[in-house]
């Protein structure tokens, strides 16, 4: 998967009511920039193909 620009404002508008978060206008540019960086990072992670039985790292020990 490659990184494609996306509408960070739409993501913020959709998610913040659910999380009961307010993202003040003064913070928005910084948050959007960080979301774009995160999306590029996620694209890098998805480039590594893993099998269905790949186990996530944390293992719960009862």
């Amino acid at each position, binding site marked *: 998967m490659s990184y494609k620009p996306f509408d960070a404002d739409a993501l913020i508008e959709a998610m913040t009511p659910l999380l009961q978060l307010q993202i003040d206008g003064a913070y928005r540019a910084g948050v959007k920039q960080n979301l774009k960086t995160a999306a590029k990072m996620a694209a890098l992670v998805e480039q*590594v193909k893993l099998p269905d039985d790949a186990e996530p790292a944390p293992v719960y020990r009862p």
Partner: protein
Amino acid sequence: MTPTSSAVEIAEQVRDGRVTARAVVEAALRRAHAHNAELGAFTDILDDRACDRADAVDALAHGGGNPGPLAGVPFAAKNLYDIAGLATRAGSAINRTNPPARVDATLIARLEAAGAILIGACNMDEYAYGFVGENAHDGPSRNPHDLTRMTGGSSAGPAAAVAGGIVPLSLGSDTNGSIRVPASFCGLFGLKPTFGRLSRAGTFPFVASLDHVGPLARSVRDLALTYDLMQGFDEADPAMTKRPNEPASSRLKHMIPGVRIGIADGYFAGEGVARTAVLRVGKALEASRVVSIPDAHAARAAAFLITMAEGAALHLDRLRASPDMFDPEVRDRLLAGTLLPAVWIERAQKLRRHFRDEVLGLFEGCDAILAPATPMLAPQLGQKTALLGGVEMPLRPHIGVFTQPFSFIGLPVVSVPVWLEGESLPIGVQIIAAPWREDIALRIAHQLEVAGVARAPVAAAFQRH
């Protein structure tokens, strides 16, 4: 005792009665007060507590008791370590109205049980989320080798205190590189142990999946001894190993016969001084192999995402209630972290195990891997961009590119300081070993120190008083 005395030297003299712990600690406190305005190393200097502990060490020594292997050695701790009687601020404004800690963090208690004496709490990037050491509330820490430059972070004050000759050793934490980056910029030996080796109990968390704690020092002997004295199971940290203690300091001089050392290439090749320093260390160790670490870009990206998401979950209530009280740089990253899709984080955690398996396989062909600790020398305070690969890039997210992939999978790493000819600042090289083989990384670091390839002097301006 002088600012350049090692912990081992101080402890020997206190045990032999040649100097009192009180005199050593008073001198360290004087240096801390005298230099803190320029170094920005401490947020709290603990005069009364330190003097009381010093008197107790002296009373024990004078009464014929054993005051311990670190008798009278002053040390400092990043202010995310609990210190009884102080609110654990973790570099924030918000936390300083919390109730004071009731007891000391496990590692502080263990060092003091060995005779060491805590003299202060150190400055750091807010909530440990940064590599620059520029705290928005308490001001920046400044690099003792050049006060116009960054210490690096987030264990910024602990590095300034040791490189500035105030104390011979300090405690930091390392989630993505926060011990190894300031060790590189300030020219110190830093140990990030294997994930789960040392207790995090009584430290303010950041990313539970990735948080490590460890020491910084000016000699490998001090680093190894401190590490040894802090080992041991602690049920208060759920990530801790139940392995028996595996002391390293008694084995420093025992080099591994036929030790196989690889130099990481590709993603880790580095450029300029970072590359030159790795090659110099490699030559001194007769490193004959080149090691290709697959998927390092993706590993670093996964560490980045896990950090954002877990950090955001930790701070969600504070982000709701008082976002304006955060450092703006930290706040915006954490707010973005609240919005990441869960599938990204799950994929990142799956990649973590996959990457671990790939890298562990490399240790079948070598005992240790060399890589740069930072891509550059200490940047100027306030610097926002850096030239990397000929391209101007934002500085902050790129300082940790070489450290993040190894903390991601919890490998033990010693960062060793190298001074290249013609440079007035040091740069670190990472010695990365297989899990639970801190001893190998420390023995190699010691070999480099004995050979004069790695050295960690007190900064020239702070050597005399």
